[in-house]
């Protein structure tokens, strides 16, 4: 027990005396969550658009007013000729151009049909898609208002409701993702680096020629990171509750338990990395390339797993982050209990055992 306390105390000295690791530990989570929360967003607000109104009648004016009134768009320019559409796109000033045909209002009343063209700058496809959807829905609204006076015999009215995130806030999606990435990074990368540092500095040599058993060395090294990662998880949850108003609908206790489980999974991965790399640099490269990228790209954090090609979907199953994101989303946004997350929890648990098993097998009790 004394040995354990001594090792842990020593590890804390290392962490608090190294500014770089302090920053990675505490600066990065806050920076990342704020960045993802504020800057990186799928929502559209105040997007600049231009109008080409060849009709210039009451109806088109009404529609333009409706668009101008929405908080999503601001009309930057009214252009007069079709030929200037291309140049205004090329300047990159607007993301979309709305073009009303000649005699728009008259067509609508006489022929019961009129066309308006939505041109979007699809260099950013997601954005273009969203803009087009938003404008369409404004048009649809207007159309419904017109039809209220007239009765249509058959009508299907789709009523969609966005459950669990009614306002479609992207921060709801980022908080579980960022939490996963940060816990993974801190736990796996920092432990693998701190273990390989002992190898690189030659201190592992002395630790080996001592009565300390390998598991005592490792436990002493990873314990501080469990503690610090838990603090990180708490900071992230607090930030998301108080700054981004992301709810925690489920049990905080369960969230804490699952987070600790995931932290231990990541630590086990970190230990595994440290057993196969001999320098801090290698450990960092493996952690970044081998863990961070899949965690960000294949876990369902940013890109939905269901739309990935089948082989990638298969790979995503062996990424611990995927399961943890499902768990966090479940607890925070849906408010589900352990009963619904049993499968994911067991998978994380099994992965932890496998990683630890391999680490124990690979751990070297001698040099080379």
């Amino acid at each position, binding site marked *: 027990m004394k040995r354990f306390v001594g090792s842990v105390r020593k590890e804390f000295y290392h962490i608090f005396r190294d500014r770089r690791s302090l920053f990675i530990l505490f600066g990065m989570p806050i920076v990342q969550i704020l960045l993802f929360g504020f800057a990186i967003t799928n929502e559209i607000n105040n997007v600049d658009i231009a109008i080409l109104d060849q009709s210039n009648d009451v109806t088109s004016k009404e529609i333009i007013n409706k668009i101008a009134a929405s908080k999503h768009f601001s009309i930057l320019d009214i252009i007069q000729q079709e030929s200037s559409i291309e140049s205004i796109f090329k300047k990159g000033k607007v993301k979309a151009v709305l073009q009303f045909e000649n005699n728009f209002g008259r067509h609508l009343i006489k022929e019961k049909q009129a066309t308006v063209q939505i041109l979007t700058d699809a260099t950013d496809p997601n954005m273009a898609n969203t803009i087009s959807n938003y404008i369409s829905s404004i048009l649809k609204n207007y159309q419904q208002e017109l039809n209220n006076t007239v009765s249509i015999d058959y009508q299907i009215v789709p009523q969609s409701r966005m459950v669990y995130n009614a306002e479609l806030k992207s921060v709801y999606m980022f908080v579980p993702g960022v939490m996963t990435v940060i816990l993974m990074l801190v736990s796996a990368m920092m432990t693998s680096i701190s273990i390989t540092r002992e190898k690189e500095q030659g201190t592992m040599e002395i630790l080996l020629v001592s009565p300390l058993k390998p598991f005592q060395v490792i436990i002493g090294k990873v314990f501080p990171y469990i503690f610090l990662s838990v603090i990180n998880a708490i900071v992230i949850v607090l930030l998301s509750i108080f700054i981004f108003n992301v709810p925690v609908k489920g049990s905080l206790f369960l969230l804490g338990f699952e987070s600790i489980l995931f932290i231990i999974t990541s630590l086990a991965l970190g230990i595994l990395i440290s057993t196969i790399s001999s320098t801090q640099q290698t450990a960092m490269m493996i952690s970044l390339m081998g863990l961070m990228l899949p965690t960000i790209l294949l876990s369902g954090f940013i890109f939905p797993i269901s739309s990935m090609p089948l082989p990638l979907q298969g790979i995503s199953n062996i990424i611990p982050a995927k399961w943890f994101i499902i768990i966090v989303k479940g607890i925070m946004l849906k408010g589900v209990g352990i009963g619904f997350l049993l499968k994911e929890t067991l998978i994380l648990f099994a992965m932890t055992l496998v990683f630890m098993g391999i680490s124990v097998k690979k751990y070297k009790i*001698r040099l080379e």
Partner: protein
Amino acid sequence: MGILVKNISKSYGKVTALSNISLDVKPGELYGLIGPDGAGKTTLFRILTTLLIADKGQATVTGFDVLSDYKSIRNSVGYMPGRFSLYQDLTVEENLNFFATIFGTSIAENYDLIKDIYVQIEPFKNRRAGKLSGGMKQKLALSCALIHKPKVLFLDEPTTGVDPVSRKEFWEMLKRLQQKGITILVSTPYMDEAALCDRIALIQGGKILEIDIPKAIVGHFLKPLYNISASNMYSLITSLTHYEHTYSVFPFGEFVHYTDKREAMNVEEIKSYLVQQGLTNIHIELTQPTIEDTFMELAK
């Protein structure tokens, strides 16, 4: 019950680090492993401290086999690797405390053992180990290796990169530790330190050249040895190297150590040869061989 090494061989791929090494260190002995860089000293240390497995041969430390009983060895030896291997970001006191705890002891418990050494670095006990001078680092490393009262102490080149005064102090400390009954195996590339050991093994290219007490090692040098000095050191060496009767020429401080091929040699003859070569201020005198001379002779 000291250290017993029997026919140990070890190679890394195609490079042979040790070939068929045998030696025995008696309990309480201060034993020196003398040889240049790359002689295989560190490899032997690592095999004895159970960090490496030998390809062939057996070895025991305090009666424990390095392979099957490695845990007992790790409990009872102190090891100071060649490279400074303490935590640079921890202070002197924190380092010592840490090593005391992992060996299940405390500084207070074994203070009398490290006292002589530790008092010298105690004024700097709140300084980070990375900021210590070379000599102080070595004293700290030795304190850390001693804190658990080991039966055997392995010191791999403890004085490399240390100033002459600290080196002298360091060896005085080893002598005191030896008096406390600790068996010490120490390696060094410095021949002058060899004379301070009880027994030495000269090692080169993974082979042991000679094992004996330092005085007897010198006795293996049979040829008369001359100190020669002249106005120009460089041309003195080149001239002697090309001299037909030369057996060996080595620079040694301000002199050149010279041996002749012939049974009886004529000092005047060499002198006139050197004058012929354009050298002035020539002094030639008979001298006592040192361990270094013996080493060079054996390594030839």
